[in-house]
């Protein structure tokens, strides 16, 4: 079963094209790492999949998945260091996509937020101010918010940026668990080319004209040959 199909998709901004004629399928329970140098179009591709930018050509097809039910974790959420927001307020905001025209959270949304806080082991931080947390804790809060928005697909844009080694390993472990034990499909943009940290089963490598999409094993072998 697949969740998303990209058919001949070309993406870009105004007058310039970033990615041309991309064909790929995202299967259920995949864990895809997207790698590539700066400016190779990793974030652009993700925005295309999320529907934040419209393809200039081609089609993105969603199967068994609504476009706004993807859990997105943007690259470095720029938060003012004095922004007043509790962890709970932030995590709850992830449930907005299931509210339809309703304006206020009900028990269903609150339970969902509590469930995901517990799942990531941060339920004790519930009433803490987001800005007082460490980098690793913040990422988990944002991950919990994304989990409130989806039960199927997470898209993470460089989630391990600015994390120390220990928090990074901790985050990777959590992501693997979500993928293996909770059946959540994950797409993760990463800069981390250390083979041990290419934790997904598939790799999409964007490098100017050379696009590779295949299993992680194959990719590692290929890189060794080069």
């Amino acid at each position, binding site marked *: 079963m697949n969740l998303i199909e990209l058919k001949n998709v070309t993406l870009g901004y105004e007058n310039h094209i970033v990615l041309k004629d991309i064909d790929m399928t995202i299967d259920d329970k995949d864990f895809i790492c997207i790698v590539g140098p700066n400016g190779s179009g990793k974030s652009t591709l993700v925005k295309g999949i*999320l*529907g*934040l930018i419209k393809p200039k050509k081609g089609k993105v097809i969603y199967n068994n998945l609504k*476009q*706004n*039910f*993807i859990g*997105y*974790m*943007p690259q470095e*959420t720029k*938060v*003012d260091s*004095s*922004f*007043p*927001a*509790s962890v709970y*307020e*932030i995590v*709850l*905001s*992830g449930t*907005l*996509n299931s*509210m339809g025209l309703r*304006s*206020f*959270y009900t028990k269903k949304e609150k339970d969902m937020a509590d469930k995901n806080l517990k799942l990531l082991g941060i339920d004790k931080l519930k009433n803490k*101010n987001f*800005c*007082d947390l460490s980098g690793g804790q913040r990422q988990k809060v944002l991950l919990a*918010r*994304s989990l409130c*928005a989806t039960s199927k697909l997470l898209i993470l844009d460089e989630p391990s940026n600015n994390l120390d080694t220990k928090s990074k390993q901790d985050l990777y472990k959590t992501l693997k668990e979500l993928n293996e034990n909770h059946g959540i499909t994950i797409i993760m943009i990463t800069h981390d080319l250390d083979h041990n940290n290419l934790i997904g089963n598939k790799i999409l490598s964007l490098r100017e004209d050379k696009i590779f999409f295949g299993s992680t094993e194959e990719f590692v072998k290929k890189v060794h040959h080069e």
Partner: protein
Amino acid sequence: MSSIVEMFSYTFIVRAFIVGILISLCASLIGVSLVLRRNSMIGDGLSHVGFGAFAIATVLGIAPLEFAIPLVIVVSFLILRLNDNSKIHGDSAIAIISASSLAIGTFIISITKGVNTDINNYLFGSILSINEKDIIVSIILSIIVILLYVFSYNKIFAITFDERFAKSIGVKTDLYNMIFASLCSIVVVLGMRLMGSLLISSLIIFPTLSSMQLFKKFKSVIISSIIISIISFIVGLYISFIYATPTGATIVIANLIVFLLFKLLSIIRIKK
């Protein structure tokens, strides 16, 4: 006590009291998002546009509120667009728009009437200028602002905290940004009568900044801002009545004192 009774025996004070409380409430509501999105200058820019609009309306002899509110809303949409496609930098654009409006307003008033106290009233506000119709318009619009804010609250929070995420889960960010810009425009224009074009933005910014010194939850900051805003207004109005000082300026000073007090408390709390 007797001075309070005396104060409310004047119709213009009662009018100012009603309008002022509503405006203070609305201004503090929208202030939180404006300040946190680093858009405080938009409030300031819009107030200058309001000044220009009031001047034109006065000269043409048309109802100032009915003319100014739509015009300011249109300009606020324009500023939103300028912020989006950032060929001109956002704050430069606001600076250009606000200076031009101020200049056009002053120019028009002076060639048609000669420079008189009118300009002063527009710039610094005058509680004497609030009439019966203003009250009705203010009450209706304030209720609209409050209802729209309450019903969009969770979405406004999501957009204020992280617009990209909000957009990805289907929150209509462009629509809410427009709703929000309209609310700002209405509050600014309504508040200008009382506070004047130069002082109205402080009514939007101060209560939020004060609250952020002590409170760390979005909801607590909003509730605290409302309380600070209303108390500062009442104290400011009372003092201005007793000592015959300009109302707008006195309210801003009351806000400033609250801010300094909260700042001091937060410093003490950190040291502990």
